[in-house]
């Protein structure tokens, strides 16, 4: 970089003081005239008044009495009035007619002119005497070589004669450049509305760095690379995409600066422009660091340029073309992550697979055919189910993950765009953070639609990368549509294909727009906002263009998949927007979402209530897997085999010695009544064991099943190398009770609050835990109270025996119990007292071992509104008052069985 030593600078300033004094004096022009300069020979009068001063200033060589180069430049700057002289000339060099002045520099003056015959515009650069040593030689050097085409080289040379202010003739060299119409780099970077994407800076480095490298190879330089000398063409009609032209090359016209200093100045300017790029980009990155925005590859290059590690343009271009630092970084990254983040044992971690590697998740996924058919069909679908029921996996299974070799659906028919809402992407749209009244729901919808556009293009781009989707011949329709959707046709800037692919460029632009529009939701007054809002109609148009642009997608249909779309992952207001998409019935895209019970609002922004079976279909996984006799539910054996398949696939994948789970579990009891009998009579050998018990304890939930089997394997020391060995009944029991106990205890860790008796705010988790333990304990008391007989009746459910409305808190707690799958409302039955068919609430069987109760449902408690509320709001009182007689009965064995001891309290 060009540097001036501080001492040197100070002495130069000191030395120039006398000259400044002389220049300020009113007679300076007269004294200057006294030098009597001969422009051709540079000789001056040694007797003149200023001679000594000029010698001191190193403007005159005292030996030859001639002006030095610096002296000549000083003299010419002081004595030539270009404006006046050029106005006198009608035509320059017989060819050019001056139109207007562009720039007055210290080494040259620049005008726009017109070719008198061709009518084309040119730039005339008149070089001040003393500014160049040998301009013709310099022009020969840079013109006779194959340089980058966006370096605008001189196309003509001429020489004119004008007069200095004393009337002496002086020859002036003029070089002629092609005139470029466009914005300067300065104007380009200052345009706040232009979404510069991360790759624009790479394009700049590649293009301008390449030009300067070409010059460097010739040992030439630009010499004056300020931001007005870089012209930017971002017109979408430009086939080359974003193009930077370097104009006004000043090689050989650098006044008193030496060649080394000029080269250093080029690098200094270049670094400054890179920095300005970063500043312009960061200005609107409210929530992103420049490193994240640029990405590691570009960031490494930029860092090395800014930090002056790259000392020449050869090194700059090496960074662009090879970037070994980035390649090393990629290797280190893989090593670091593998080294630091230990993978967990994998057998049970269905959820882990879902969140880390869709390839594995899909590989191990066993879809239930009936449900999978419905999920795959083109229609709006809502999937509900307990946690762990696999609803996310069903959605992920139809999402487009191009790295999966054998997907369950063909993306040519079903193109799923997956949003894992639990990650918090939509939580920001909460009314606590966004003022919907001032912002308006349409602006939020605009942001959500942009998210969908961005995500879709990202998925397709990934498909292009792994060559599942072929590169289209033409992106113009897509680019045009996106420009329209963004409300400004000039916004989308294309980049050269050798910098970045067109689709990556579009994705990058959308990322930036999305970030800006999202920020606008929070800081509406401080930012420019979109002048057009995207809607479901635009989304439809977008997908149509996608179908037309990408051959493989021409017949596909788009499924927008919102996984875990309930509150708080997606706030209610944002759910209304998704519902708007649901009701915009169309043949191109549909919506599928998964949610827990009572977490999703089926209402549009226009207050229309969605109708199940009309606007959407709902599939409740717990209800779907409900087994029952004949027409009441699914065939028991079908479900058992389905769950066996789930385990079998994992045993196969993790290379266990046998794929049949029965080979690992000691069989246990011939029928489950034996277990109930042993539990009721308090026998120590009441073991939960055997496949037929295990899969039923899992209660239709794959995650429960995997956890149980995993724990049994752990207790029984079964691993892939172990030959099929039966885990003893006792060890199975120990593992199962441990899982059940953990599940029960973990209820207390459910987040949230609830207000119970006396307005006391308590932990929702703790309250659910208390209610569950009371329910389980009451069932246990009932089981223990069974009279001595062969078959014991097991209580496993509760029923509302009237239809009176519940206290809102109790109702809310009931909903939470259903939402977290503690109770299951799948079974409908006619209530004993009012004869109305309604759900009975069955305790999830995963909790049965923790309470030492059986897993079959023979009886259920019938509770009035009052008792029901007591159970939820004051569980301890419920267990005390409700089971008093039973507990007495257990103590005084031999009493008659009470059919329902709560009957006497239901009044």
């Amino acid at each position: 970089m060009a540097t001036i030593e501080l001492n040197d600078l100070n002495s130069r300033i000191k030395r120039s003081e006398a000259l400044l004094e002389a220049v300020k004096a009113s007679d300076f022009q007269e004294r200057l005239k006294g030098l009597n300069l001969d422009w051709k020979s540079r000789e001056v009068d040694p007797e003149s008044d200023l001679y000594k001063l000029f010698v001191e200033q190193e403007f005159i060589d005292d030996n030859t009495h001639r002006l030095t180069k610096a002296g000549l430049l000083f003299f010419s700057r002081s004595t030539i009035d270009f404006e006046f002289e050029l106005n006198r000339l009608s035509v320059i060099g017989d060819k050019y007619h001056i139109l207007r002045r562009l720039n007055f520099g210290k080494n040259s003056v620049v005008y726009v002119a017109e070719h008198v015959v061709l009518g084309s515009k040119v730039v005339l650069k008149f070089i001040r005497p003393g500014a160049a040593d040998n301009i013709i030689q310099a022009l020969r050097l840079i013109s006779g070589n194959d340089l980058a085409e966006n370096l605008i080289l001189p196309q003509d040379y001429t020489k004119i004669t004008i007069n200095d202010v004393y009337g002496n003739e002086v020859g002036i060299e003029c070089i002629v450049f092609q005139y470029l119409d466009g914005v300067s780099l300065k104007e380009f970077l200052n345009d706040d509305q232009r979404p510069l994407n991360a790759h624009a800076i790479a394009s700049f480095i590649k293009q301008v760095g390449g030009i300067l490298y070409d010059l460097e190879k010739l040992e030439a330089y630009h010499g004056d690379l300020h931001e007005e000398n870089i012209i930017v063409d971002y017109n979408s009609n430009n086939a080359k995409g974003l193009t930077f032209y370097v104009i006004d090359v000043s090689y050989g016209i650098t006044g008193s600066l030496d060649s080394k200093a000029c080269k250093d100045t080029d690098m200094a300017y270049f670094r400054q422009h890179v920095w300005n790029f970063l500043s312009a980009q960061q200005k609107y990155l409210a929530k992103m660091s420049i490193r994240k925005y640029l990405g590691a590859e570009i960031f490494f290059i930029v860092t090395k340029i800014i930090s002056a590690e790259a000392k020449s343009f050869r090194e700059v271009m090496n960074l662009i073309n090879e970037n070994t630092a980035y390649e090393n970084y990629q290797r280190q990254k893989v090593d670091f992550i593998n080294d630091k983040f230990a993978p967990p044992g994998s057998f049970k971690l269905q959820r882990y697979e879902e969140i880390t590697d869709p390839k594995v998740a899909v590989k191990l996924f066993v879809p239930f055919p009936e449900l999978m058919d419905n999920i795959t069909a083109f229609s709006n679908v809502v999937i509900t189910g307990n946690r762990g029921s696999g609803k996310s996996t069903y959605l992920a299974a139809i999402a487009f993950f191009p790295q999966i070799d054998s997907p369950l659906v063909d993306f040519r028919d079903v193109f799923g765009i997956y949003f894992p809402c639990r990650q918090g992407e939509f939580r920001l749209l909460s009314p606590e953070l966004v003022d919907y009244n001032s912002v308006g729901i349409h602006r939020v919808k605009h942001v959500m639609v942009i998210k969908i556009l961005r995500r879709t293009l990202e998925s397709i781009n990934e498909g292009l990368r792994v060559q599942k989707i072929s590169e289209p011949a033409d992106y113009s329709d897509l680019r045009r549509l996106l420009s329209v959707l963004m409300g400004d046709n000039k916004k989308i800037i294309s980049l050269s294909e050798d910098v970045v692919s067109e689709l990556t460029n579009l994705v990058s632009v959308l990322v930036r727009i999305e970030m800006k529009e999202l920020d606008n939701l929070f800081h509406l007054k401080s930012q420019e906002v979109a002048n057009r809002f995207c809607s479901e109609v635009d989304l439809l148009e977008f997908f149509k263009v996608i179908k037309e642009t990408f051959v493989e997608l021409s017949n596909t249909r788009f499924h927008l998949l919102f996984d875990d779309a309930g509150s708080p992952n997606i706030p209610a207001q944002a759910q209304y927007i998704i519902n708007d998409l649901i009701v915009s019935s169309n043949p191109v895209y549909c919506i599928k979402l998964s949610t827990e019970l009572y977490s999703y609002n089926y209402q549009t922004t226009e207050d229309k209530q969605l109708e199940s079976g009309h606007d959407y279909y709902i599939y409740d996984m717990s209800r779907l897997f409900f087994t029952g006799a004949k027409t009441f539910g699914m065939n028991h054996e079908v479900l058992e085999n389905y769950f066996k398949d789930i385990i079998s696939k994992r045993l196969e994948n993790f290379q266990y010695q046998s794929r049949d789970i029965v080979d690992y579990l000691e069989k246990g009891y011939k029928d489950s009544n034996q277990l109930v009998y042993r539990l009721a009579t308090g026998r120590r050998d009441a073991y939960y064991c055997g496949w037929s018990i295990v899969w039923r304890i899992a209660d239709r939930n794959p995650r429960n099943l995997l956890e149980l089997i995993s724990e049994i394997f752990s207790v029984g020391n079964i691993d892939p190398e172990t030959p099929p060995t039966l885990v003893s009944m006792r060890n199975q029991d120990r593992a199962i009770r441990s899982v059940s106990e953990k599940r029960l205890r973990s209820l207390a860790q459910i987040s949230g609050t609830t207000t119970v008796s006396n307005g006391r705010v308590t932990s929702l988790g703790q309250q659910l835990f208390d209610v569950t333990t009371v329910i389980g304990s009451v069932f246990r008391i009932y089981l223990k109270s069974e009279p001595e007989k062969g078959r014991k009746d097991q209580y496993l459910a509760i029923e509302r025996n009237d239809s009176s409305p519940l206290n809102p808190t109790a109702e809310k707690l009931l909903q939470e119990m259903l939402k977290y799958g503690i109770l299951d409302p799948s079974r409908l039955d006619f209530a004993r007292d009012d004869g109305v068919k309604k759900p009975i609430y069955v305790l999830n069987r995963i909790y049965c071992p923790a309470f030492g109760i059986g897993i079959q449902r023979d009886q259920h408690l019938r509770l009035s509104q009052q008792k029901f509320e007591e159970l939820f709001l004051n569980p301890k009182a419920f267990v005390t008052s409700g089971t008093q007689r039973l507990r007495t009965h257990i103590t005084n064995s031999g009493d008659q069985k009470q059919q329902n001891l709560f009957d006497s309290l239901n009044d």
Partner: protein
Amino acid sequence: MTKQKNQPLVYSYDNDSCPLDSLILAAGFEERAFHFLKSSKFQPHAVCVLIEFKNDIPQNDEVYKKYRREVEKKFKPSNVFKVSLNADKLAKFEYELTSMLSKIPEVVGDVWIDISGMPTHMICSTLNACRRLSNSSSQTVIYTSAKDYHPSESEYKKLKAKNPVGIEFLPKSMAREMSEVLMLESFSGHRSKEGISCLAVFAGYEVHRTSGVIENINPSLLLLLYGKPGNKKLNWRLELSKSLHKKFESTRRTAVEEVSTLHVNESIEILELYYQYLFEDYDFTIAPVCSKMQVVATFLFWERYKEVQLVFPLPIGYATELSPKGVGKTFKTELEPRNSLYRQANLTVEK
């Protein structure tokens, strides 16, 4: 002591004379939160911004009055300002604090922030408000440690004896059960990886909060940062924290590190180390559940990388009887100005 570029140093502070222009502190119920105010002398022109807690903790009114009396003794009445942290409007706190601070000219001067009585989200919001208002000034963070923390060592030993591998459940802690994961707009970060995420948890002793935040974020990678106490006699607390969180290591790919509970640099360095390799492929979220100085580190890290999301798992309330007891050392940390142009290459600070 020489301060390295851009790295705040923490050092013990036992001087009662405070050359500050403004003091921001919260009326926390812990004894240590009151200590700095009680034991310090302030300049006549100094301004005090006192943050009042408005929630259902019954002692709060009395505690606030105690602070108010002390503040009025030490600051001119016209130099005392109050702002509230309303339990049901946590998201508005930063806005309200910023609005107030913007009207106080002294806030551009030497601002000291006593974080001893502040919950995690308040520390971040307060630092953000101050540093955004005056990005060319440095700020001083004051932190007073307690003498005794809950649970005690004897409780730990009993738990360990019962559960030699991993302690599944802990007796009650000061922070009660998990209520929600608070996400503030300022710290909401930028999500772009469609579910591929890493959650860094500064794990403490309130395992239910860790559990809640892991459940909520459902990260692909988990980075557990255990607090390493400065005093070796307290190393059992590190072991306790590890035992409590052991169970999470089997749920997903997990990395484990130990970082000082006090020295901000250490936490920033470890976050930097991981983030340099994660930022391209993972959305990064940090949940500071452990020490208050680690929250300061988390904030400073976020300030560099605003795409990082900070989340604050909130308890449903506090069991004040289980709060840290007594007053330990007071530490002072000077934060470099937010705007890098105003950062100095080397600063020398007196001990």
